[in-house]
């Protein structure tokens, strides 16, 4: 789809940063307020889709390579599974550790001495162990996946010009 008129492009330029920062805020504070990885990723993907509709898919494909988005999605999945397996691997080093897959190993521990004190004053942002890290990895998966789906479908069914 080719681009839309000048009014739509101007309003998209104004509204795009606010929507994107709101989505990242939802991801970062997902364990304290309503939100999380899925919801924030969906909001960020909505802002990217707004740019896609306003400027046209041919312009976007010139700027963003599809392979880079695939790398981002794979990175998110590897982070998620890796965080799950750390809970199993820690059994080998600490014999008194009761671990399992997807074990929340950062909560209620004293092996890393100062970790739970970081960010105590800033409205308790570091209270949930590995849940914020999992929010970030799931957010990466959702952003890259939904944007790749929209981009590939819009570019493959574009209206061919001069035909």
């Amino acid at each position, binding site marked *: 789809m080719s681009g839309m008129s000048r009014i739509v492009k101007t309003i998209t330029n104004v509204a795009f940063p606010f929507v994107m920062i709101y989505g990242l805020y939802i991801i970062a504070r997902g364990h304290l307020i309503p939100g999380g990885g899925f919801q924030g990723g969906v909001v960020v993907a909505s802002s990217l889709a707004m740019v896609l509709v306003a400027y046209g898919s041919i312009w976007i494909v010139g700027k963003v390579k599809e392979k880079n988005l695939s790398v981002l999605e794979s990175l998110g999945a590897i982070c998620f599974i890796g965080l799950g397996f750390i809970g199993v691997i820690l059994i080998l080093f600490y014999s008194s550790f009761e671990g399992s897959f997807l074990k929340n190993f950062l909560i209620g521990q004293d092996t890393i001495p100062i970790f739970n004190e970081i960010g105590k004053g800033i409205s308790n942002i570091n209270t949930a162990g590995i*849940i914020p890290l999992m929010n970030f990895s799931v957010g990466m998966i959702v952003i890259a996946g939904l944007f*790749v789906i929209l981009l590939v479908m819009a570019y493959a069914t574009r209206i061919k010009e001069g035909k």
Partner: protein
Amino acid sequence: MSRRNLVAAIFFAIVAIFLVFGALMMHPFGEFDEEHYPEMDQYIIDNTQNETGADNGVTGVVFDYRGFDTLGEATVLFTAVAGVILLFRRLKK
């Protein structure tokens, strides 16, 4: 009305009757008596701040108590992206 539409209409009527009776026989909206008391949810509500450290109970359930569900959901999203790219690969150029 052909024979196929007649059979489909009969099937639709049977399913509709069962679903409507099921909706009318549910327990009243928003009230839980002793028979339907949600023990598992009450345990999660009472303990989610001690066991997971998250204030938001839904995030605690999604990423800690039911982490395998989230893993499966990520797998489904990955497979859907792979399927869409595979289907439109030939049409791109």
